[in-house]
């Protein structure tokens, strides 16, 4: 294990170049370029605000509904988009896997880090919205990176598991969009946790993104968050990271043979 970590550390520049490649390629020949990082959550937010905020009158814990949904969408968009990229990272780089050796974990790693640029860009827009809606910044704003880091770990954990399974079973490719679509509804993005009947709330807490988004909102708006939900979220995240990492490590030797 120690040897593996030092090998990954020595090859860290590959991670950087692979992530850099993904970022460069993503916005080449796209007229709007990196603006897409904002447009995607922005339009989703506008649609949500219209249907769920205006028409359905879903409560938003005293925060303006656009801000309420956009703040969650910043993290959720990163999660959903990047999870699909991490899950496909081995299959889409099969020409590398069959031709050259480097620590395989760098491929899902690069996909997870490559997505962070989009997150930074859409977060800048979020800051703009906070100013526009005159939300007084709290010191807890400084804690938001903790939830971003948790999302990265979660994407890595689930993504490594899916990526390794995807090498053998291409079904995974079709599962990921389905998973993230369901996830959009079983995560408090459109509605606050308190909107649900009490007996469903603890089930929702099993979804690690619930704690991430609740905690993230609490840092921004000072809304209430149940510490138990955060603990549960971190436990599930770290467990998934462990399972994903172990599965990845035990199967990576055969990637080149079956990809």
């Amino acid at each position, binding site marked *: 294990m120690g040897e593996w970590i030092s090998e990954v550390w020595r090859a860290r520049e590959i991670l950087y170049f692979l992530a850099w490649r993904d970022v460069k*390629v993503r916005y080449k020949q796209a007229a709007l370029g990196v603006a897409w990082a904002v447009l995607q959550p922005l339009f989703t937010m506008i649609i949500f605000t219209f249907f769920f905020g205006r028409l359905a009158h879903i409560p938003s814990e005293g925060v303006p509904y656009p801000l309420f949904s956009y703040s969650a969408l910043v993290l959720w968009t990163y999660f959903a988009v990047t999870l699909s990229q991490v899950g496909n990272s081995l299959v889409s780089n099969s020409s590398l896997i069959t031709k050259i050796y480097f620590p395989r974990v760098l491929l899902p790693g690069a996909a997870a880090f490559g997505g962070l640029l989009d997150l930074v860009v859409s977060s800048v827009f979020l800051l703009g919205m906070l100013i526009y809606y005159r939300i007084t910044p709290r010191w807890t704003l400084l804690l938001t990176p903790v939830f971003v880091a948790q999302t990265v770990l979660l994407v890595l954990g689930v993504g490594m598991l899916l990526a390794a399974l995807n090498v053998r079973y291409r079904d995974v490719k079709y599962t990921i969009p389905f998973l993230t679509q369901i996830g959009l509804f079983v995560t408090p993005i459109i509605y606050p946790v308190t909107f649900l009947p009490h007996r469903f709330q603890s089930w929702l807490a099993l979804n690690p993104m619930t704690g991430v988004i609740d905690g993230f909102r609490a840092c921004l708006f000072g809304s209430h968050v149940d510490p138990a939900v955060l603990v549960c979220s971190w436990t599930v995240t770290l467990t998934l990271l462990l399972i994903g990492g172990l599965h990845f490590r035990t199967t990576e030797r055969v990637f080149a043979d079956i990809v």
Partner: protein
Amino acid sequence: MTASIIVEDLSKRYELGALRHETQLRDQLVRSLRAPFRRRTPKEIIWALRNVSFSVEEGEVVGIIGRNGAGKSTLLKILSKITYPTSGRVRAHGRVASLLEVGTGFHEELTGRENIFLNGSILGMRKREVDAKLDAIIAFAGVERFIDTPIKRYSSGMRLRLGFAVAAHLEPDVLIVDEVLAVGDAGFQKKCISAMEDLRGGGRTVLFVSHNMAAVENLCSRAIWIANGSVRLDGPTHSVIEAYMATFSTGESAASELSAVEGRRGGGEIRYTRVEFLSSDRELQTLTRAGKGIVVRLHYRAREPIERPSFGLKICTELGTVVSDTSTWLHGLDIPLVPAGEGYVELEIDSLNLLPGRYQFSLWINSCVQSHLYDGLENPVHLDIEETPIYGSTRRIDNRYGVVFFPQRWRLEGIASGAAVPVTANR
């Protein structure tokens, strides 16, 4: 001298069943639902390598030869840690770089310069190192003008030069190279060979897999011949190559069965079953020399009577350039009816004026009266044309000098001094 690579009792097993059936979870579920208690069908096991041992001294340049499917590529993949052996182990000292392909990881949308950094990093170079060597790499590749152009606009030759240029600046202790010299134009191949020679001069250990016997003989002091997954012979290059080449005249079949070829197109009313390469007097020909006559006999089986078909054959170079595309229809031949059953047609070539190298054959049968394809096979067989004294000289003439040659001679009477020096004298 110390050993640079030690290979101990290496074996690699592939299970064909595992490769074929398990890529869909559904298949597995269906199987276990249908017969929950039956054990899975035994898989077909292939030993790509079996008990291979050898060691390579520091600074040695070793050629690895053998036929397609002998296990050379598997060996290289294990040596470069891409795949893992089923048993046995490999110990390597120092920085190992493997080059199983030129330009691994190149991305179409990135510029030449960006791809140098990406490729260099994947091959194990530090960014500082690439920074320092960037100008040299660009100059070696000869792409200065296009360095900030996305490589999707590059020709295949430029892409190749760029890839090799990065690899040539790697400075590893051990270099593992697979057949990269087989492509590219003559000038570039010379550059590659001299880069390889520099590596040899620099005391680096090189393992070099190639079908190009001339290159192996020029570069390597020792050769290892792999056959059926084991080391058949290991020794001085010249004697290993000689022993290896000798097997071609008796061993390799000059006929290929086509019944089991996958991915064929067409309706299947009539299908090719077998191809044979014969000499002009209809003997099976195992060694095809440039410039000699050849008969390609195409066996078929028709399920039903076929009206007015046309039999076709296309010869391409390994890089896909069409050398000749011919058919009975093009020759104006009318075949009113092919009765159901088996038979054959022959294409007789008076002199096969192809330069030595590997050529791919594509075959088809279609209808002359309607647009219907009965059978279509993309590159099911290839033909290796061996080197031969083509122009009556002892020069090694191969596909670096083109694709075809014509009956020709140089006339030197016009040189002022009159007395021409015989060409054979200045070897």
